[in-house]
Every structure is written in structure tokens, then in C-alpha cells.
């Protein structure tokens, strides 16, 4: 009997639970699903929208991580490594929004939306976990679970939609950004190539088309100012200062630094035509004198042709003043110390057509050119567009013999030089070959100096100082091997007879500026008529 009662009670309980479930499904679950699922989806969409807007507006608890200059330097900004032209890390500057921050904002909005849905699931699970037998309540518990699922679906769907909108809005800006950036980089490189613009350091003799720039506000060095991930038109330094991109723009507005030794370079470095001319020759050949007289003559020639010559730094200004004074007094030139390679004399030339160029004249003691071991530090030789070999005619034995017994010979013939010019040439050419310099791309001006003293000798009386005549004269005076070797090594060799004196521009046939004028013209800087430097009219 008891057994029957138990079975009946069990069947009654099952029937009651089934009835409860049926009623719950009918009156709670189905209406709940119909009502709460759309509401949950709508709430999810709204939540995603609010989260996205709040994230982008940077509201307090939604504010995303800001990708700043420190992250850029540390390499945690998500930018790729610099690829070309520089071996430095990225500069301390703000990245473009399109390079890093947009992704951080998008991820942040997604994570905030996910946090909201995770929190709703967590609350629901906690509440359900407090029930003793939650499984029995499934017709009722299915409603909040369905609502949570609807919320998650709404957030996910709306998040996906907003991501697409994000990308659709940014895509045309990216395209414009890439187009403008690549165009500006190309214009920058093309301008430099057309002008022959490079930056040359007067201290370490490093040559580059990508110098460093100093922030005028915080003095931090920026190694790569080209348009890129740190900005297309402007780079914003970490201190907030706005720096112009493109080397040719920045060089006119910012302090320029050598990327190797961080020495200060002249204004406009890597934006102006840069012409580097080493003057080499034996000791006491007259190199320093030629540079001094050449500078003064260049200045006079520039003024006469409507151009302008100005010194670019204090040292060069002092050198120019000393040269002017030296020539005015007619004094002897002091011997250049052989301790180290001195910084070049640098002048800026502005032609009548507003073409600006910078000319570096490198002078070093002849002792440094006398042996292969001593010229290793003369790095500027490797980067020269053209060179000037100074030949003292009185170092040639044949000329000294001819001068004996000549009128005034004892007074006019200067002290002989220690080494002959051919030996100096061979040592220097060997140095260039050892360092992999392609001399066949360089030009060589061979300047026979002291023409004013030659005037007292019988040899050059019938000789006009044209390049062909000077060449023939060198061959006649035992320098035929030098001539042949130089013409084989260099792309072009031209010969000049000059007098390193303070002379008027009208006497241009012997002007000490002629070798420099020729090399300048080869670099696109025309300061004088062609016929003066041996070219046809």
C-alpha cells in the first residue's frame, strides 16, 4: 500500500512539474523570448554604439591608451622598424593617428563592449549559482540567458558594423595619406638628386642625404625627418613642437646635425648643392696659397657676374679675411700643420639665377700626402666630386736648370718643394683605390701654380695658358707619366696655369679661381663664361 502511495505521489509530482514547465514556457519563456531577445539585441547595439563613442571621445573610464612618443622610441607603438636610409631607432615624436592610435582605439572599444557582456554573463551565472538546483528552473532561467545571449549578439553585430564603418571612414584618409607621403618622399629625393644636395660634416667628413635635425624647443635629435608613420606634412616632437617633414624643407628651418658625430652643420645642408674639392700636392707646392687666392678671386668673379659668395661659418669667415689680408700684403703663406686634417673652408655661392651651392675646399699639409700610411684619415678624399692637384713648376729639375742664369733667377725662384708631384699623385690615387673610390667618376684639375714667377723665365713666353698648352708643357717637362696616369684614372682632367696672387678679374687667364670655377661648373654652378675655363663658347 505504501509503495503504491509513493508511486502515485511521484507521478503526481511529475505531472505537477510538467504542468509548471508547460505553464512557465507558455506564460514566461515564450513572451520573455519575444520581448527580451529583440530588446537584448537593441540594448547590445546601443551599448556598442555608446562604447565606441565614449572611447573615441576619451570619456573618463573609456579613455583608451594613448600611443605617445615614448612608445615610439621603445618600439611598443606597433610601428614597423625603420627600413631604409637610417640605422637609428624611431625618433621621439608622436605617431600619426593613422599609423597606430586608430587600432588602439578600435581594440579598446571592442574590449569595453566585451567587458560589458562578460559582466552581464558573470552576474547571471553568480545569481544562478546561488540556486540549489538551478536545472529544475530551466523554463524560467532560459529567459535571462536568452536576454544575455541577445545582448552579446547585439554587441558583436554592432561592433562588427562599427568596425566596418571605422575602416570605411579611414580608408580614403589612408589612401590620401599614403599618396601624399610617397609623393613628398619622392619630391624630396628627386630635389636632392637634381641639385646634387648632400650634407657633409666638416668634423668627421661624413656624407649623407639624410642628416639629423634638432628640435628648436627641446633640442632632441630627430634622425629621420622624412614623411612617414610619424607624420606626412609635419612631425610632432615629443615636446609638442611641430617639425616640418622632408629634408629640403627641414634643412631651411631647423638646426642640422651630423648623424655620425652630431656636429652642427651649416643651414641648408642636404638641401643645397654640395661641392667638395680637396686640394692636394707636395709640401710647399702652394696649396694653401692657391686656396686663399682662389677664394678671393672666386669672390671677385662672383661679384662681377652678379652672383654672391659668402662664408658659411666663423672659421671660414676668418680664413677668408686672412686670405684677403695675406694677398693684400703680398706676404708668404704659413705652412699648414701636419697634425691632422683641418676643417674645410666653406663658402656659399648664390648665382644670378638664384641657384645656391656650398663649396668646401679641403686643405691638408703636404706631409699627409707624402706616404700611403699618413693619408688614411683624409676621408674627404673619398667623397669629392673633383680634386685639384697643385704642381709647383720649380719642383721640376728641367725648369730649375733653365732658370739658372736667367734675369733675376736667384730672387724669383722659390725654395724647391720636397717631393715631386707625381709621387704625391700616385700615393693619393693609391689611397683612393684602397678605399674603393671610383675615380673614373671624379674630375681632376691639375693646377700649375706660380705663373707669376714663370714670367721671368724663357720657357712660357710664347705659351698661352690654355689647357692643351699646359698639358703639353707638363709632358715636355718630364711629367708625361703623371699626365697619362691621371687621364687614365679620372673621368676628366683639365690643366690650368695660375698665379696665386691678388689680381683683378680682368686678368682671368691666370686666375687662381679657374680650377674651382671649372669644378663648380661640372657640378652645375656656372659663375664664369665657358671660355675662361677652357671650354668652347
Amino acid at each position: 500500500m505504501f509503495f503504491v502511495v509513493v508511486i502515485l505521489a511521484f507521478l503526481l509530482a511529475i505531472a505537477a512539474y510538467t504542468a509548471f514547465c508547460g505553464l512557465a514556457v507558455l506564460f514566461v519563456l515564450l513572451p520573455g523570448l519575444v520581448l527580451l531577445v529583440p530588446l537584448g539585441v537593441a540594448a547590445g547595439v546601443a551599448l556598442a554604439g555608446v562604447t565606441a563613442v565614449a572611447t573615441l571621445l576619451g570619456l573618463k573610464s573609456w579613455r583608451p591608451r594613448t600611443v605617445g612618443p615614448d612608445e615610439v622610441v621603445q618600439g611598443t607603438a606597433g610601428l614597423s622598424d625603420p627600413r631604409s636610409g637610417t640605422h637609428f631607432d624611431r625618433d621621439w615624436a608622436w605617431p600619426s593617428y593613422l599609423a597606430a592610435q586608430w587600432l588602439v582605439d578600435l581594440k579598446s572599444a571592442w574590449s569595453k563592449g566585451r567587458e560589458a557582456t562578460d559582466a552581464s554573463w558573470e552576474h547571471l551565472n553568480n545569481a544562478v549559482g546561488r540556486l540549489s538546483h538551478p536545472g529544475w528552473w530551466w523554463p524560467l532561467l532560459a529567459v535571462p540567458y536568452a536576454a544575455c545571449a541577445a545582448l552579446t549578439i547585439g554587441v558583436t553585430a554592432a561592433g562588427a558594423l562599427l568596425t566596418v564603418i571605422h575602416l570605411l571612414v579611414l580608408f580614403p584618409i589612408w589612401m590620401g595619406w599614403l599618396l601624399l607621403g610617397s609623393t613628398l618622399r619622392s619630391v624630396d629625393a628627386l630635389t636632392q638628386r637634381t641639385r646634387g644636395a648632400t650634407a657633409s660634416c666638416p668634423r668627421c667628413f661624413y656624407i649623407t642625404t639624410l642628416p639629423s635635425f634638432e628640435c628648436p624647443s627641446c633640442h632632441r635629435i630627430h634622425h629621420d625627418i622624412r614623411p612617414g608613420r610619424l607624420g606626412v606634412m609635419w612631425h610632432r616632437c615629443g615636446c609638442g613642437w611641430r617639425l616640418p617633414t622632408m629634408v629640403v624643407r627641414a634643412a631651411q628651418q631647423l638646426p642640422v646635425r651630423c648623424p655620425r658625430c652630431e656636429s652642427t652643420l651649416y643651414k641648408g645642408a642636404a638641401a643645397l648643392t654640395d661641392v667638395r674639392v680637396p686640394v692636394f700636392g707636395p709640401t710647399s707646392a702652394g696649396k694653401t696659397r692657391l686656396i686663399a687666392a682662389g677664394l678671393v678671386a672666386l669672390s671677385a668673379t662672383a661679384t662681377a657676374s652678379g652672383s654672391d659668395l659668402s662664408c658659411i661659418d666663423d672659421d671660414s669667415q676668418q680664413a677668408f679675411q686672412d686670405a684677403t689680408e695675406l694677398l693684400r700684403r703680398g706676404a708668404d703663406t704659413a705652412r699648414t700643420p701636419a697634425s691632422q686634417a683641418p676643417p674645410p673652408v666653406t663658402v656659399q655661392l648664390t648665382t644670378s639665377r638664384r641657384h645656391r651651392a656650398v663649396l668646401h675646399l679641403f686643405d691638408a699639409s703636404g706631409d699627409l700626402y707624402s706616404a700611403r700610411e699618413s693619408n688614411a684619415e683624409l676621408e674627404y678624399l673619398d667623397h669629392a666630386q673633383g680634386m685639384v692637384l697643385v704642381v709647383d713648376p720649380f719642383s721640376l729639375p728641367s725648369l730649375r736648370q733653365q732658370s739658372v742664369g736667367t734675369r733675376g733667377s736667384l730672387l724669383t725662384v722659390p725654395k724647391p718643394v720636397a717631393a715631386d708631384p707625381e709621387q704625391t699623385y700616385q700615393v693619393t690615387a693609391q689611397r683612393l683605390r684602397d678605399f674603393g673610390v671610383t675615380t673614373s667618376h671624379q674630375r681632376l684639375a691639375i693646377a700649375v701654380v706660380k705663373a707669376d714667377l714663370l714670367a721671368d723665365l724663357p720657357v712660357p713666353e710664347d705659351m698661352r695658358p690654355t689647357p692643351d698648352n699646359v698639358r703639353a708643357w707638363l709632358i715636355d717637362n718630364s711629367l708625361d707619366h703623371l699626365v697619362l696616369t691621371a687621364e687614365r684614372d679620372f673621368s676628366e682632367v683639365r690643366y690650368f696655369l695660375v698665379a696665386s696672387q691678388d689680381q683683378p678679374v680682368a686678368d682671368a687667364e691666370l686666375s687662381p679661381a679657374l680650377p674651382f670655377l671649372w669644378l663648380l661648373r661640372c657640378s652645375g654652378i656656372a659663375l664664369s663664361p665657358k671660355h675662361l675655363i677652357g671650354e668652347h663658347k
Partner: protein
Amino acid sequence: MTSDRNCIPPPAYRWHRALLVVAVLTVLALGSWELTAQLQPGKPLREVVTHALTLDPLAPLSAVFAPDS
């Protein structure tokens, strides 16, 4: 070296974000507008959902760039 300005993002950040906010709000507003227009008393929800799924998001652009003919 780091100054207070280091904490302030450049103006370009604000401009890009403002543009994105406008785009998001515009889409949300247009979506709400469309939904409100479709939700009519007595209209089955299934029809509203079906209509929403068949919406062409590029329709306004197509209308702008369509030839006059």
C-alpha cells in the same frame, strides 16, 4: 625632457576621432530612423527584421552617383 605637453595628443588625434564619432552617430541615427519607420503597430517583427537584413548600406551613395537617366 618630458614636459606636460607630452601627455596631450596632437590635434590630429582629435580630428580623426571626431570624424569617426560623427560617422558612428550618423549610422546609429540612420539605423534608428529606419527601424522606427518600420516598426508599425500590427506589423510582424519578422518583416521588420527581414527588411533590415536586406538594406543596402551603399544605397545613398548609389543614388548620388547614379546617372540622371
